């Protein structure tokens, strides 16, 4: 009896130990993958039908949890982890950016196609030489402390970003305001190109024409009286103390920040469009999944990858409005053009033909993606499919191109040229989608005779480091949010894509920036996209698709891929 009990115990022990060993590996995965919600590795082709791009209205409001019903003057949105640095231009985490976009309004914002539209600035005009931009502010603008906002504040904000101690990632300095460099180097006490002509008018003169200036310059405005009180050139330490006590001009004011838990806002009575309809707004820190909070009614809004499973789950809750959403980014594979093999356009094209992008990015992702062929998002005003080669999966075409480029099949099935094997060293960061990519790409590349050697990195910074060392052939990246089409093609101009130098692309790039006529710009970009689509200095892969879902009793919710939450002052609870 005793013996058998011990035997049983040992057996169960062994079993459970095995179980724990298996699952501890999976534990990491879940932690890292929770952000992208539910990217199941389902490769069956039937699951590809999330094509319905229409919003879905809540079907059954009676399912609304009591917790949400009780809340009548507060909107709660989940946000990963804001750190408390709420001064625009000075935060390092995008989550702080989400917070500050409620606290501060911009001079110029963007519509749903990415075109500039007025916010705090009533209008702006450009001089004939496209060098001087003049912004006209609305009348009677006020900061949240009741003090008036004038052109001086705008000038102060721009000047501050030219300080040599400024360590944020604003790109204002990159557009080159005249005299800015002198200020940065301490040779001038003010920036020559910034002129305040009256309290409502401020103008900027640039060194060269840049059509994105209204968006880049039209950012948030800092109060000179508050943020500039202790300002001395070269010393920005003092501003750190103000991060948690923002004075803004957005729809909401900061009420309380509880680190790791929530950011509470209260309506700003001085907001230029009048006090927002809902008195309170809360960003709830939710490091992991927001599913459970949406289900218990603790948050009103969540954003999810557009997989079929997620859609089904969201629909089943019944009380959610579901809206499809495409962020303004594109995914791509960087190609090492400095390796002789891949400097050949035909080889790059062959690789693209040999990669079943539809299966990898759309079907295996349960429809939460779309194949990309040009460097701009499908929601952008510059997007076009005219004259663009879709590079549909075609291994025969790939083989033919490789033959043309002189790569012939060797004895082991791998292609060779001058005694060198055709290998493809790939870098990717650890994620379920990288796993899918590697599985399907290995198969596809084998078929066309390419030796595929994937290397996976546990974290992104390590991947970037390897990429910068140049020891790779192919590397998987996604762009940051692109607010203007020029952001998407910049990497072909500024030397980031090493070894690519096409004077025609450069010319088109600068042409497109030197005019503010959108129709004209569209033409330049269409032409540029055609060249890039043909030459493939990088291999375009995919666009992401997601849903945002919000409580059906919320009214007026809009999430604009370019400007974030839109018209928050009009969001209301029924």
């Amino acid at each position: 009896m005793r013996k058998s009990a011990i035997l049983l115990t040992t057996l169960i022990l062994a079993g459970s130990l095995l179980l724990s060993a298996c699952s501890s590996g999976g534990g990491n995965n879940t932690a890292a993958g929770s952000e992208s919600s539910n990217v199941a590795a389902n490769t069956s082709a039937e699951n590809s039908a999330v094509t319905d791009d229409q919003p879905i209205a809540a079907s059954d409001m009676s399912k609304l949890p009591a917790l949400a019903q009780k809340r009548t003057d507060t909107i709660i949105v989940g946000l990963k982890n804001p750190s408390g640095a709420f001064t625009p231009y000075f935060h390092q985490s995008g989550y702080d950016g989400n917070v500050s976009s409620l606290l501060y309004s911009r001079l110029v914002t963007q519509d749903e196609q990415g075109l500039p539209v007025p916010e705090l600035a009533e209008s702006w005009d450009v001089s004939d030489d496209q060098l001087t931009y003049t912004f006209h502010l609305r009348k009677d603008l006020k900061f949240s402390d009741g003090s008036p906002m004038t052109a001086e504040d705008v000038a102060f904000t721009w000047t501050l970003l030219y300080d040599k101690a400024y360590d944020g990632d604003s790109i204002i300095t990159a557009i080159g305001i005249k005299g800015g460099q002198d200020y940065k180097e301490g040779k001038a006490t003010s920036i020559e190109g910034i002129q305040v002509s009256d309290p409502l008018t401020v103008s900027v003169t640039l060194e060269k024409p840049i059509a994105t200036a209204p968006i880049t310059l039209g950012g948030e405005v800092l109060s000179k009286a508050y943020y500039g009180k202790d300002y001395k050139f070269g010393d920005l330490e003092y501003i750190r103390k103000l991060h948690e006590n923002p004075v803004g001009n957005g729809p909401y004011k900061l009420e309380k920040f509880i680190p790791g838990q929530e950011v509470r806002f209260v309506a700003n009575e001085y907001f230029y469009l009048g006090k927002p309809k809902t008195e309170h707004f809360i960003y709830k820190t939710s490091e992991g999944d927001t599913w459970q909070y949406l289900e218990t009614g603790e948050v009103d809004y969540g954003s999810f990858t557009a997989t079929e499973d997620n859609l089904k789950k969201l629909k089943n809750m019944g009380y959610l409005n579901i809206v499809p959403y495409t962020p303004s980014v594109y995914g791509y594979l960087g190609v090492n053009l400095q390796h002789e093999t891949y400097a050949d356009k035909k080889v790059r094209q062959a690789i693209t033909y040999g990669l079943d992008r539809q299966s990898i990015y759309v079907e295996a992702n349960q429809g939460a993606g779309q194949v990309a062929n040009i460097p701009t998002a499908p929601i952008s005003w510059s997007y076009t499919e005219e004259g663009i080669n879709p590079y549909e999966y075609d291994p025969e075409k790939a083989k033919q191109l490789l033959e043309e480029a002189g790569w012939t099949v060797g004895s082991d099935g791998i292609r060779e040229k001058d005694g060198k094997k055709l290998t493809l060293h790939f870098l990717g960061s650890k994620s379920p989608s990288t796993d899918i990519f590697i599985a399907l790409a290995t198969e596809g590349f084998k078929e066309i005779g390419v030796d595929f050697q994937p290397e996976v990195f546990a974290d992104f910074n390590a991947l970037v480091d390897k990429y910068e060392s140049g020891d790779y052939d192919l590397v998987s990246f996604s762009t940051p949010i692109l607010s203007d089409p020029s952001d998407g093609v910049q990497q072909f101009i500024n030397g980031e894509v090493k070894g690519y130098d096409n004077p025609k692309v450069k010319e088109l790039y600068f042409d497109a920036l030197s005019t503010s006529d959108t129709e004209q710009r569209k033409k330049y970009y269409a032409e540029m996209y055609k060249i890039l689509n043909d030459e493939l200095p990088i291999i375009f892969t995919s666009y992401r698709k997601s849903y945002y879902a919000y409580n059906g009793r919320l009214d007026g919710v809009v999430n604009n891929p370019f400007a974030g939450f839109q018209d928050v002052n009009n969001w209301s609870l029924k």
Partner: protein
Amino acid sequence: MSTYLVKRLTYMIIILFAASLLIFCLYAFTPGDFISGNLKLSPERKEELRQIYGLNKPVLERYAIWMKNAFHGNFGYSLAQQKPVLQLFNEYIWNSFLLAIVSTFFTWLISVIIGVIAAYKQYSLFDSLIMVIIFAAMSIPSFFIGLLLIKGFAVDLKWLPPGGMTTTGSNATGLAYVKEVIQHMALPVMVMTLLSLGSLTRYFRSNMIDVIKQDYIRTARAKGLKERKVLFTHALRNALLPAITLVGFELPGLFGGSLIIEKIFNWPGIGQLYMSSFSSRDYPLLMGFTMFIAILTVIGTLLSDLLYKLADPRVKL
């Protein structure tokens, strides 16, 4: 005793120095730095920022600067969080500590009780059953148990909140606040206790079995003492003795935070902050936190030794 202490303290300082150098180098040589992950920046701007942060200096020089500042009580300014490192500790560590201290208390309490009974009734049905249950609980991954409990207690039954430390938007103070925190703590504490119960119970059980076999227990029984008294006064006290050394080792764990638990239950603790600072290469925060844990570990070891001496006068230091 005092010479022993002086000697130990000297060792401690040397160990901490060596550890700090090692840790600093480890972090500095991990590929990628704070700047490299930001794809928005142009190569020139990256260089400029590395200059501002001093990341382009040689590693040893950076270490010397860090050390000098640390001696002046300045543990630096978190790059990613844009706050002084010490302020961040203060904001997050106590939340982690609260979870850890409560679950440690329950772990010890429950494992002593189970351990004693299991040892007393060695090889009984109770003993086998409890061991199986405990090992099963220990072997199930924490994220799985955590999600299961959230699904059961929070989403389906709605008895307990699914996560966080307080109800969102709540303005509760005083007792109402305490009640709220206790409600939010219940699930994470349950998971943490379940997970750490196993090893400690086994420890107490085997200690107890050893002690029960001792002559003095037989003597106690022979002189007619009640079984309860034999067990809890004579046996348990001696069985607990070796466990005192464990108390010191728990010290770093109390402040270290728990990455997975904090993540699943959205607990505003230091564990997840540390993890995110690693992936962003936020050196000041990484360095500060790791050194803090190193100091606690060294102190904890010293504490264990001293406690053991206190509990067992036969031990000579």
